[in-house]
């Protein structure tokens, strides 16, 4: 059972439907026991970093997620959910993140439209057991902030938006995707499936 963590940040329906199409069992929840009992966790999220951390802490989920991840439970952060895995963000102030991965979240700054919105090419940088069998392709991004990871080996895939944008991160059982796999056609579905199915 995969627990999709529901903390009031964004719509989880498309993600849950994608898991359903892939035939993976899921539950949408903010319940601590359910999260503890789940085999894997997905932390989605759309909106502002600070709000998201506040919503997590209101539900007493901050420490729980960190503990579960440290104990080895597979955790996938999507979009803002990936950014929350990192140390801190300067989105509308300074906010601490879950600090499961080391790095900062910064505003995109380039002479191109922002948000970075649309289909962009996923280039794999480091091999990762979960994604070994996948071919590169386009996935759907929509974000105005991006992750600057401290450890380059945590960056599994990037995309080019006049500079390298962190697209997939992973360290052991903690995974993040800046794009929306549930909105990224067949490749997105494969990526989700690999997380749901794979052993890490």
């Amino acid at each position, binding site marked *: 059972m995969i627990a999709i963590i529901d903390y009031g940040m964004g719509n989880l329906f498309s993600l849950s439907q*994608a898991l359903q199409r892939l035939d993976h069992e899921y539950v949408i929840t903010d319940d601590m026991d359910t999260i503890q009992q789940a085999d894997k966790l997905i932390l989605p999220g*759309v*909106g502002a970093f600070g709000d998201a951390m506040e919503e997590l802490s209101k539900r007493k989920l901050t420490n729980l997620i960190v503990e579960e991840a440290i104990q080895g439970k597979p955790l996938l952060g999507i979009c803002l959910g990936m950014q929350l895995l990192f140390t801190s963000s300067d989105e509308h102030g300074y906010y601490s993140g879950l600090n499961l991965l080391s790095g900062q979240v910064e505003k995109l700054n380039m002479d191109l439209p*922002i*948000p970075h919105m*649309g*289909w962009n090419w996923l280039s794999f940088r480091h091999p990762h057991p979960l994604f070994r069998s996948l071919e590169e392709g386009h996935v759907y991004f*929509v974000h105005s902030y991006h992750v600057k990871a401290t450890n380059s080996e945590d960056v599994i895939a990037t995309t080019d938006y006049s500079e390298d944008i962190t697209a997939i991160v992973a360290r052991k059982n903690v995974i993040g995707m800046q794009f929306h796999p549930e*909105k990224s056609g*067949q490749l997105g579905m494969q990526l989700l499936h690999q997380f749901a199915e794979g052993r890490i």
Partner: protein
Amino acid sequence: MITKRIIPCLDVKDGRVVKGVSFVGLRDAGDPVELASLYDQTGADELVFLDISASHEGRKTMIDVVRLAASKLTIPFTVGGGIRSVEDMTKILRAGADKVSLNTAAVLNPELIQEGARRFGAQCIVVAIDAKYDAKEDIWFVYTHGGRERTDWNVLDWAKHVVELGAGEILLTSMDQDGQKNGFDLSLVRAVSDAVTVPVIASGGAGSAEDFVEVFTKTKTSAALAASIFHYEEVDIMEVKALLRERGEEVRWISTR
């Protein structure tokens, strides 16, 4: 680099696709979700559903359409038409739409953009602008109420203003070119996409694959939208993408059936 997006638009009234659709192979040509799924499989990068229902019941039906579309589609979609309040936005987004598009309501009540962006994030808020050129004043004016009413807003000023308020994208329709099938309004699209920092979707006037090449090579637009030429299979999405690729533009390539 990011690809140029091709976006079919479906006009939906009381839960049915209008503007006749003549697709071969569709069981029910009026079913918006079936048509949307077909576009998903044949290379569309994104979809727009425009609800033109006039009745309360029609709008309620739209929520069901959105929910079903969200359960079937693997690409993002925007829903516009008749969204007047944060409550309306909430209903549509909760049903699974990725973005909502505001048009008349944004002009009448610009705070709606701000409120929506704060609640759901700028990336969820598309502002649709219907633009019509006034030759005497040499200005594009913003029109509302389905193009029936002219406002005092200059399109360029309005576009910049909505971005300041938090719009994450602009869906720009040329009323002069709409339905003409002789190309996008390049000067309008160029002016707006040069003036704002967010992505622009060009709409109105597409008649051939060549028209898409033109709007992407001659303006900074991020996406281009069309309706009837796709519905009537006059132009195929992958044919458009093939031509774009030939001319050096990046597109998302998928193998279709």
